[in-house]
């Protein structure tokens, strides 16, 4: 009898030796069939090896290649006990309390198999969408309360309606997969683990606004994701889910991957469109909105990976089902990414409303170093630093905004008490200087000037004056930048200065 063994080929699992584990399993010549999956999102347990048994899938982790002979001898293939045995992954406390809607299949399915995707509930949303009028699809998404998960939190349904209302024969659906924020990896994890959910979401978006062509703008820093997504798109074409007549419906949707080239600013929607058109990724002045004049001047949906990947479940289960997760105006679930100095880093999908403290300590297990967590940064390099006194804030768009923070793409980076906040503030400017597209002055010049001011401040060179200049500079960048890169760089700087003033005291000459 051949036993099925599941080993992730997610980037993080690969970086921890998943391929070497597969090689060791093959070398042992055990009667097994190896299936490569995404990750379950318990990243400290990677490589997590799962074995199919009569009692369900049993997991072991973290497994190294050297552990393989011992595991096989102990009875890995029957799910026998071993020091590395986790048990059923879905019973693990980290996963048991999650509410996985968008990530329901990640870590479970073979990402390149349409058959496996359908066997796990895939394409039910598209089947429903194929029976609906475009306006009804748009209404369902609007009623679900879904807001852009890329960071801007704009209601997805309103954006789609604007595109639907344009009377143009050629429209586009574009997916912004230029996930450049540090501490965020949800897009990558979804694309590597269940790319067909994104493909299905984009196909539904195409049907909703009468767009026949879609592009995924995917980071060049994610080579594994590029390969997985391309394979999934090819499989979807082969199975008749993409192309001239989707499942014989007579409706057309084509989808293609475009590889980005390492510019953070292209995560901003208009610079992404410039880049897709083959130009420098410089921000466009709005209006016109991309929904009216977007890619190649045509009406265009620009949505983040997670927004689009949340659409299939909304179409399948209905707007009310999705909306009933969450709180206030933050409806549905958020894939929260736990990163940086945490013991149990990984992905936690929960309804909005869970507190920062719950995710940091109940899921994250506190700091990896064992030292106290001094601060967290949520929402990427442009997100504010949040002090422990605000850790009881619920994760929802409005509650975080009230403490000066943002949800962003849902990534949280934790720092222990060895962090130097003046250095982090300086880094925010430095990063902005490296990544500025150069089109507007506050961002292009302000970023370099900001780093200088912090140097002068720390050197004790007329600190009061430097502080005043820094405040003025932050204000100019906030008010005067064309996009969020320059406009939000002051958030980490000002929050660091506000909550950790002691780190900004002059240090004399270093």
């Amino acid at each position: 009898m051949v036993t099925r063994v599941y080993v992730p080929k997610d980037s993080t699992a690969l970086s921890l030796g998943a391929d070497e584990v597969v090689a060791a399993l093959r070398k042992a010549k055990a009667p097994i069939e190896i299936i490569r999956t995404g990750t379950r999102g318990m990243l400290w347990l990677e490589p997590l090896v799962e074995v199919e048994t009569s009692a369900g899938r049993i997991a072991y982790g973290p497994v190294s290649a050297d552990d393989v002979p011992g595991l096989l001898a102990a009875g890995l293939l029957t799910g026998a006990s071993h020091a590395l045995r986790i048990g059923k992954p879905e019973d693990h406390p980290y996963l048991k309390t999650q509410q996985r809607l968008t990530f329901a299949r990640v870590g479970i399915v073979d990402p390149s198999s349409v058959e496996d995707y359908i066997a796990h509930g895939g394409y039910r949303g598209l089947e429903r969408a194929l029976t609906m009028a475009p306006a009804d699809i748009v209404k369902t998404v609007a009623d679900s309360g879904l807001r852009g998960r890329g960071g801007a939190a704009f209601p997805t349904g309103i954006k789609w309606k604007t595109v639907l209302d344009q009377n143009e024969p050629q429209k586009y659906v574009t997916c912004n997969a230029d996930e450049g924020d540090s501490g965020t990896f949800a897009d990558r994890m979804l694309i590597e683990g269940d790319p067909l959910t994104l493909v299905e979401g984009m196909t539904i978006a195409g049907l909703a606004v009468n767009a026949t062509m879609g592009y995924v703008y995917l980071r060049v820093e994610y080579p594994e994701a590029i390969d997985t997504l391309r394979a999934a798109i090819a499989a979807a074409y082969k199975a008749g889910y993409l192309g001239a007549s989707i499942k014989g419906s007579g409706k057309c949707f084509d989808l293609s991957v475009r590889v980005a080239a390492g510019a953070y600013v292209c995560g901003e929607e208009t610079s992404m469109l410039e880049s897709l058109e083959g130009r420098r990724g410089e921000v466009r002045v709005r209006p016109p909105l991309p929904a009216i004049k977007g890619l190649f001047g045509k009406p265009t949906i620009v949505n983040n990976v997670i927004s689009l990947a949340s659409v299939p479940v909304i179409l399948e289960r209905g707007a009310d089902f999705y909306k009933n997760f969450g709180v206030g105006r933050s409806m549905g679930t958020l894939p929260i990414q736990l990163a940086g100095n945490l013991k149990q880093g990984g992905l936690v999908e929960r309804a909005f409303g869970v507190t920062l403290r719950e995710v940091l300590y109940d899921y994250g297990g506190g700091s990896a170093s064992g030292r106290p967590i001094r601060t967290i940064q949520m929402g990427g390099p442009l997100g504010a630093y949040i002090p422990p006194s605000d850790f009881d804030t619920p994760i929802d768009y409005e509650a975080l905004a009230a403490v000066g923070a943002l949800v962003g793409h849902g990534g949280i980076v934790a720092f222990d008490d060895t962090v130097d906040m003046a250095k982090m503030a300086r880094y925010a400017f430095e990063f902005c200087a490296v990544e500025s597209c150069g089109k507007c002055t506050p961002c292009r010049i302000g970023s370099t000037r900001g780093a200088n001011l912090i140097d002068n401040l720390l050197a004790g060179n007329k600190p009061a004056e430097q502080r005043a200049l820094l405040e003025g500079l932050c204000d100019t960048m906030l008010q005067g930048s064309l996009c969020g890169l320059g406009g939000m760089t002051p958030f980490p700087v000002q929050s660091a200065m506000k909550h950790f003033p002691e780190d900004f005291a002059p240090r004399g000459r270093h």
Partner: protein
Amino acid sequence: MSIVEANEVEQAAVESALQRFGQEPGPLLVVLHAVQDHLGYIPTTSIPAIAERLNLSRAEVHGVLTFYHHFRTHPQGRRVVQICRAEACQARGGEALEAHAKQCLGVDYHGTTADGGTTLEAIYCMGNCATGPSIRIDGKLHSHVTAARFDKLMATRGTH
């Protein structure tokens, strides 16, 4: 390889990229990727040909080529080491790793060791944020890279 032969290789790579992708909508990035994937870099001597075939000005091609961090106009070392500089890796000791790598290789970012063996590059996030510090060596991603592990990885993957 002589200079003449090298030029021929470059020209063939550019021609092949233009033939395959020149008809795509907004093709410039796609073409540049194809050239770099083939040669490892994009020769500046190819700018006039690319511009002419895509009906762009040389300035536009040059502008795109120099805007994006990923594109480069010179060959890299035989081995490429990319170190993540972003916050999540910093929170796990990334800064110490950066300093160690620079000292160990004797070069700064974008530098190549004197023997042409190793190029050091900074990278801002590879989406491997829970298990940092992260580095990529010749395309292979590694987690938990301490100074000691860096030395081991460099030693097992050839000399520098």
